[in-house]
Structure formats: structure tokens, C-alpha cells
């Protein structure tokens, strides 16, 4: 057996665990998307289930919906944030760190605004929560939506502030979007995970808009 030990391949532990951390970030972000989909999935099921049952004709008897204007603003902010951030992230990968920083802060502002609008909308509903099936589902949906938006904005903020505070380290070797340094690769993996998660939520937001404001 001794020859096995002697001939064993050299394992670069630092590289091994660096790659494992990158893989974990990939899986962590995809799992977060799965969790978001299943969490909203329950509420979307409630929407269709109660709508199809229409118990006592009380799904939406007076056709009262939440403010379409605010709903449109929220959707616009979320989509705008996702687009600006995605473009910034693409620019980062081509070497322009400052473009992502500007885009990231704009996306952060839009995202926080969307979360804020959603909370504000809850305070000025034109229906009582128990007035209809629609009312109940909307009151259930809105806090979850705003919390998930704000959690994504927390994620984006930590990325932005991390780059701002560690730019000298992260931005060396041609820029954080290009550098082969482990910290830069880790940052990019984290950013890529965020981009996927935030874009996924923005696509779901279109569905929510259709369900709660159009149909």
C-alpha cells in the first residue's frame, strides 16, 4: 500500500476549497431561487385555488384591486433594478468596475424603492383584508414580496460595500471582473448568484403583476 501513499496526487487544499466555495455559492443561489419559487408557489396556489372555488361568490365581488398605479411603479422599479444591475454586472466582467458600482447603487435604490412602495401600498388598500378571497391573498402576498425584495437588496448592498471597502484588493490584476485572484473569483461567483436570483424574482414579479392587477 505504501506506493499508493507515495503516488497520491498532490492536493492543493487552498485551491480545492476555493473551488468548493465557488460551487457552494452557485448552489446556494440556485437553492435560494428554488426557495423563493416554492414560497411564492404556495401563495400562487392559494390565488388560483380560491379564485376557482369562488366560495359564496366572494372571490372578488366588487372587482376591487390594489392600486394599479403603485403596482406598476413597483414592477417598474424591480424590472429597472434587475436590468441596470445585469448590465452593470456584464460591464464588470469586461473590466469596468465603476460601471457596476454605479449600476449597482442605482439598482439598490430602485429595489429599496420597490420594497418601500409595496409596504406603503399595504397601508392604503381600498378593501378590508377579509372582504374577499382576493383581498386575503393580496394581504398575504404583499409583505412576503416586500421582505423578499428587501432581502435581495441586503445581498446587493453587501456586495457593493464589500467592493467599495476592498477595492484595492479586489480590483487589482486588471479589475475584479477579470482578475484570477481567489477573492475576485469569489466576489464574481457571489455577484453571479445574486444576478440570477434577482433576475428570477423580477421575472416572477411580472406574473404577480398580471395576477394581482390585470386579471
Amino acid at each position, binding site marked *: *500500500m505504501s506506493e499508493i501513499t507515495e503516488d497520491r496526487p498532490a492536493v492543493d487544499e487552498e485551491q480545492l476549497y*476555493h473551488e468548493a466555495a465557488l460551487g457552494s455559492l452557485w448552489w*446556494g443561489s440556485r437553492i435560494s431561487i428554488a*426557495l423563493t419559487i416554492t414560497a411564492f408557489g404556495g401563495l400562487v396556489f392559494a390565488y388560483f385555488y380560491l379564485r376557482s372555488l369562488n366560495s359564496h361568490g*366572494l372571490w372578488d365581488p366588487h372587482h376591487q384591486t390594489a392600486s394599479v398605479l403603485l403596482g406598476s411603479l413597483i414592477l417598474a422599479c424591480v424590472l429597472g433594478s434587475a436590468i441596470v444591475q445585469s448590465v452593470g454586472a456584464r460591464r464588470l466582467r469586461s473590466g469596468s468596475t465603476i460601471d457596476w458600482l454605479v449600476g449597482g447603487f442605482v439598482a439598490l435604490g430602485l429595489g429599496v424603492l420597490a420594497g418601500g412602495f409595496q409596504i406603503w401600498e399595504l397601508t392604503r388598500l381600498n378593501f378590508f383584508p377579509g372582504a374577499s378571497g382576493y383581498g*386575503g391573498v393580496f394581504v*398575504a402576498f404583499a409583505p412576503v414580496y416586500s421582505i423578499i425584495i428587501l432581502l435581495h437588496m441586503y445581498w446587493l448592498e453587501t456586495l457593493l460595500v464589500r467592493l467599495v471597502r*476592498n477595492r484595492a484588493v479586489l480590483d487589482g490584476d486588471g479589475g475584479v471582473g477579470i482578475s484570477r485572484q481567489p477573492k475576485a473569483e469569489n466576489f464574481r461567483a457571489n455577484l453571479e448568484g445574486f444576478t440570477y436570483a434577482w433576475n428570477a424574482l423580477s421575472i416572477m414579479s411580472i406574473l404577480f403583476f398580471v395576477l394581482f392587477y390585470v386579471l
Partner: protein
Amino acid sequence: MAIDYSKATGTGSSSGAPGGGGGGLLRPSIITGIIGGVIGWLLGHWIGNSFTQGYQQVQGSGSNDIAEFMGYIFMIIGWFAGLGALNYPIQKLFGVEAEAEEPVTEKGWTKYFRYTLDHKTVGVQYLFGMLVYFFTAGLLALAIRTELLSPTYHIWSPDTYIEIVGEHGTMMMMMMTSVVLGPFGNYVVPLMIGSKRVAFPRLEALSFWFTPISYFILLSGLWQGGFQSGWTGYAPLSVQQGVGQDTYILGFGLQGLSMVCASTNIVATIINYRAPGMSWSRLPVMGWSMLSLGFTMILSIPVLIDGLYVLALDRTAQTSLLYSGHGGSSFLWENLFWFFGHPEVYLLAIPGFGLVAEIIPVFARKPIFAYKTSAAGFIGLAILSFFVWQHHLFQSGMNPDMRPLFMLTTELISIPTGFIYLVGMGTLWRARIRLTTPMLFMLGVYFNFLFGGLTGVYVSDVPINVTVHGSFFVMAHFHYTIMGGVIFAFFGAIYYWTPLVTGYQLSEKLGKIHFWTMIIFFNSTFLPLFAVGLLGMPRRVFEYAHRLQFLNQWVSISAYLLGASLLFFAVTFVWQLAVTRKPTVRNPWGSRSLEWYVESYPPPAYNFKRVPVVLSWPYEYGDPNALPVADIVNETKDLDPVGRA
């Protein structure tokens, strides 16, 4: 090249210490967590009461659910703040990297009362946490059986009785979801796959620290009127209940969050942190079971949390999602709950089967039979578990045309279950079986699950389901699958891995006394309940027909004896770890699995001196020409259990 763990580098690669610095009592620990929780509860309750002053319907109700929820939510925040769990997320908000404190190398018993990032410490925390859960819920079971000693003479009032039933059921179901993944998934799986760490140590730690607070909240329901809806929490009863129902919502919800955190970590760890050479075809079967479990939890538990959230809104925000009179439907709860609830049954069974399939080859001294089939069985169980939930609603007034479909899907699930059963039987076939204590418990799982599994096929059939629905027959069925399956596997795993985890060997003689008393009294308790159910006794009632008194008394006395067997385990387990402390020999069971080839028992910080390279399959028992499982085997085999040459 050694890894420099001294600096954290952000999410996914950080090993920075949790909590802040400082020493003494103010260092983040369970004490500061409790202080934070008490302050949080007082603050939240006060805010909740102030916030709802103008709400007539709440003030006039005699119970303020909003204040109750606010109190608990602030208590949870205070608890985690006190533990130091929030320091890192707040530091990240300001771009401050975590301090270098070598958290994984902390020594002494006090580390078990802190928010720690060492997966082995978390595993031990989970083990004792789950035992506390199990024994508390077990005492509640004895309270139920005491009441049922007589058909008409009562120990408890009807309300108290049903509260105890609800607490017992909910606590057991909450505990069972974590009982294998928590202690053994967290402790052993990273070692089995040759990793020095886990993917998300903070999520792992968080998952454990959710459990004490959920335990306390759930238990507090007993002195707040309890929840008479039982563990299934059916609406509209659960909407109409007093504040005790809030403890069910929060306790169950927190346990759900705990499992989401634990699953995310275990999935990412198994996929990414396997040692070089640990290909998918060499992954231990327990790894496959944990992976299937993790994915099933990730896809089912958010739906439970949705259901609990909807219930909470109906109780606080005055929505009417579960009340058809205002456009909702109580069936919404049933669907959301059982979409989680039936996969949950497999969340309990899968890790139990994983333990059995992992341990049996060690004592059969031959390779596991049909390894790939066992992995396929776990994956099949996980997938099919999402397509069976409507069988819980056969009696609810569902569309009768849907019944055969869900009967079929439920029967189909017996196929992957059969795979796993046959893997065990094939492994035992013509084996040189060593009847050690862990092996006896694993064989006990097969014996018990035969009753639980076969009766499961019957109760999935519509005609029988309609006949035995809500009776003790169904109760006996699921106790055979869950307690007879996963709890027997859990105890077997304790006996199996205690030498590794503690460095002490448990007595075989005492272990066998525990096993034989437990399996005899377990069967003596639950087998007659099939008859009780068929004779017409429904669940959750505290008065019954006189003709069933003998059977019920038999069951109650058997339950006391089963309790005595478990008490015997608790006493001897603590006694052997605290007093007699018989040192173990290295690799006492002769296992080929990688966790036994660490330098010392218990394993040192970061598990391995260097990353092992896996050379062969871990189940090559009985083959003298088999390669060692990894290149570190020769380096550690001559060491004594504390790591000396």
C-alpha cells in the same frame, strides 16, 4: 498546502467567528440569548398591545394574538442577537470582514452552549437537543396513555387531554424532521465525504439554534390553553382557537426555517466538498439519503411555512383565507399543509433508511447489495413523495374521480421503498452477521417497518382508508413507520458513532438490554392498537367503549415499560459518558468508512490533517485485495484513539 483559516472572505468562504469578543458572562452564549429573548418578548408584547389599542375585535376577544405574535417575534430576534448570530450579517452590511478567532478550535464544554461554526459541535448540540425533544414528547405520550387506562375515569379534563395530544404530536413531528440530519448529517457526513468543513457553517449553526427557541415556544402553548387542532392544525378550528394556537404556528414555522437552513448546507456540502476521488459512485449511501432529504425539504417546507403564515394572518390581520364565508376555504389549509405533510413522512423515513443502509454492511461484512438501486430508491422516494398528498383528503369531500389517481401514486411509492428494503435483505443474504447493538437496532428497523410499510399499502387504498380513517389503526401504522423506523435507526446510530464522537465505548451488554426491552415493549404498545383501531376506537378521544378497556390497559402498561426502557438508555448513556468512561479502541466496528480514519476520537479541529484522496468504494468488505478507502488509512491505522502513535 495548509489553508489559512485566519481570515474570512465573505459568504460561502468565510470561517470567521460568530458573535463578538469579550469574555465572561457577556460573551455571546445561551445565557445572553435567553436575556435577549426575555427583553425581546417584553418589548414585543408591549408594542403589540400598544399597536392594537384601537382594534375593537382584538380588545374584545380576551386574547390578543397580535401582541402574542409581536412578543414572540421580538423574542426570536432578541434570542439570536444575544447568541451573537446577528453580528456577522450586520458586519457584512458595513463591509466589515469577520474577525479571525479560530472558532472551530474552541475547546471545553462551554462551546456546546454557544453559536459555533464547527459542524461537529453543532452535531453534538443537535443530538442532545433532539433527545430533550424526544423525552419531553415521550412524557406527553405517557400522559395520554395514563388517561386511556380507564374508559370513563379521568385524569385530565377533555381540554387538557386534547392539548397534550396536540403537543405530543407536534413536538414529535417537529423533532423527527431533524433527528437524523441534525446530529448525524451535520457531524458525520462531512467526515464521510473527506471534508474539513461544511459549505455554510453559519446556516448550519443557525439551523440548530432555531430548535431550542421553537421547543420553548411550542411548550409554552401548554400554559396558554394549548392548541386543540392537533399537529395537523386543521382550519377553521385552528383559526378559532385561543393564543395557544399561535405557539403552534411559530414553533412549527421556526422548525421549518431550521430545516431549510440545514438542508441548504447539507446539499451544498455534499455536492461541493467531497474529497478528491469521492466520485458519485463512491458516495456513501447515507450521503445519497441526505441529498434526497435536503432537496425534498427545500421544495416542501416553504409551502408549510406559507400555510402557517396564512393561518397567522387569519388570526391577526383578519383575512379570511381559510373561511369560506368570506371567500376563503378551509381546504386551502389542508392542501398547503399536506403538500408538505406527506413529503414529511419521507423526510423522516429517508434518513432512517440511510442510516440502516450505511451501517448494515459494516456488520454483515460484505458489500452493500445493489448500491445504485439504493440511491435510486432514495431519489424515487423523494420525487414520488410530492405526488401523494391528496390521499390524506380522501374523506374530505374531494372529487371522487381524483381518489384512484392518488391511490395509485401512493401505491407506486412502495416500489422505491421496496428497493431500499431489498438492498438491506440482499446485503444480509449469506452474510457473516455480527449481532452488535447497532446492528440489532438496524435489524429492528426492518422488522418494525414491515408492519408499518405493509399497513401503509392498505391504508392508501380508498376502501380501507375510508374504513379506518381517523382511527387508532392509522395511528399504529405511522408509529410503526416513524418510531419503529427512524427512532430505532437513531438509537442504533447513537451506539454506532458514540466511540467516534466521544472517544468512549458504550457497553454492549447494556445496549442489548436497551434494544430487547425497547423492541418488545414497542411492539407490545403499538401492535394492539391496530386491533383497537379496527374495533372502532377513534383517535383524540378520551372516553371509549368498555369492551376496549383491556386492550387499552395493555397498551398503556406496555407504554410505561417502553418509557422505562428509554429511561434506562438515558441513565446508562449519561453514566457511561460521565462516570465509567471506557476508552474506545480505534475503529471498533472495523468500518471502511472515512470518518473512522481521523487522527483521534473525537476528531480534531478541521477533521483531517490533510485532505484525503479517496481510492476505493467504502463497502468493499470481505475482499482482502481491496484498496484502502483513502490514502490516509495507513497513516492513521496504527494510532491509538487519542491520536498517539
